């Protein structure tokens, strides 16, 4: 008697039963340092942008912040 393989089982065996080996790009120390510095710079720039928007909003609205229909 011949056995018929189930394609779903085959797929599960091949791709899902075991976690794939760790692969992908390994960053060097220099690349990690550069990425961290860039991330901090982007965070600071975004923070500065938020502060600019906040300050300009205060200046533009001024005392009108309190003048609104109740």
């Amino acid at each position, binding site marked *: 008697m011949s056995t018929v393989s189930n394609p779903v089982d085959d797929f599960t065996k091949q791709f899902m039963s075991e976690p794939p080996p760790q692969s992908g*790009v390994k*960053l060097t120390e*220099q*690349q990690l340092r*550069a*990425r961290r*510095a*860039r991330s*901090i*710079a982007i965070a600071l720039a975004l923070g500065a*942008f938020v502060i*600019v*928007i906040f*300050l*300009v909003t*205060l*200046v*533009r609205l001024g005392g009108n912040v309190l003048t609104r229909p109740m």
Partner: protein
Amino acid sequence: MSLTVARVEPSIAGVGDYIELMKPRVMSLVVFTALVGLLVAPGHVHPIIGATALLCIAVGAGAAGALNMWYDADIDALMTRTSGRPIPRGRVTPGEAAGFGMTLAAFSVVTLGLLVNLVAAVMLGFTILFYVVIYTMWLKRSTPQNIVIGGAAGALPPMIGWAAASGGISIEPVVLFLIIFFWTPPHFWTLSLYRADDYARAGVPMLPVVAGDRETRRQILIYTLLLAPLGVAPWLLGYAGPLYGLAATAVGAIMIVLALRVRAERTGYAASKQMFAFSILYLFLLFAMLLVDRMSGMAFGHIA
């Protein structure tokens, strides 16, 4: 059919490389001239709004610099003066520079429009577009008039500053524009006289490369003769005080003397180097004197 995928190494670009892409030295002159335009404009601008406008103009200038370095990476690699820039050095990829430049350009123009005013934003957008598309992509590699026409981009910042403060444009900022516009050719041509080999190697048709030393020296003198009276114009037209007029006349006279020496120079480039260095000081002094004039009570744009 085989599919080849180019492998891109993870970036090693540091923050300094991105700052370098923004051409900080050019940016400082842009910010300074824009600051003068902003402060000498009539009316009062809130310091926070003024600082925001300057920040947007600075970032916009940086965006233009990054996009210029992206497009010119091939010729930058061939010239001694520019071979150390981040892209030729392999620190930043052209794609990263293009993305960085486009992002900054969009942010600076939109922010200036939303937080300051639309006139200034449209002018900043036009300046970036002019510098990148008209100058960098088109004129730079095709005509010796590249820096003459392209100089308009560098001349616009005081007008943007003026527009940011006043919401419009009048004749006074146009005079400031003309001063920088006519200052640009003598400034760059004195540099290109002693860097002609660099430009020739990269195939950039700067005036000394295509028309020779003699013609370049003649044109430096012509533009300087046009520039000197323009430098005095704010005083002659009554927009600035006598202190400015005196200083502009003195530095204008020095520029003419230096241009005559460049014209007379037969061997070497000592006079050209001297004029190149002084031209930076000349522009700085003119704009600084306008500021001093404004601070001392004589309102630029308001005839007492």
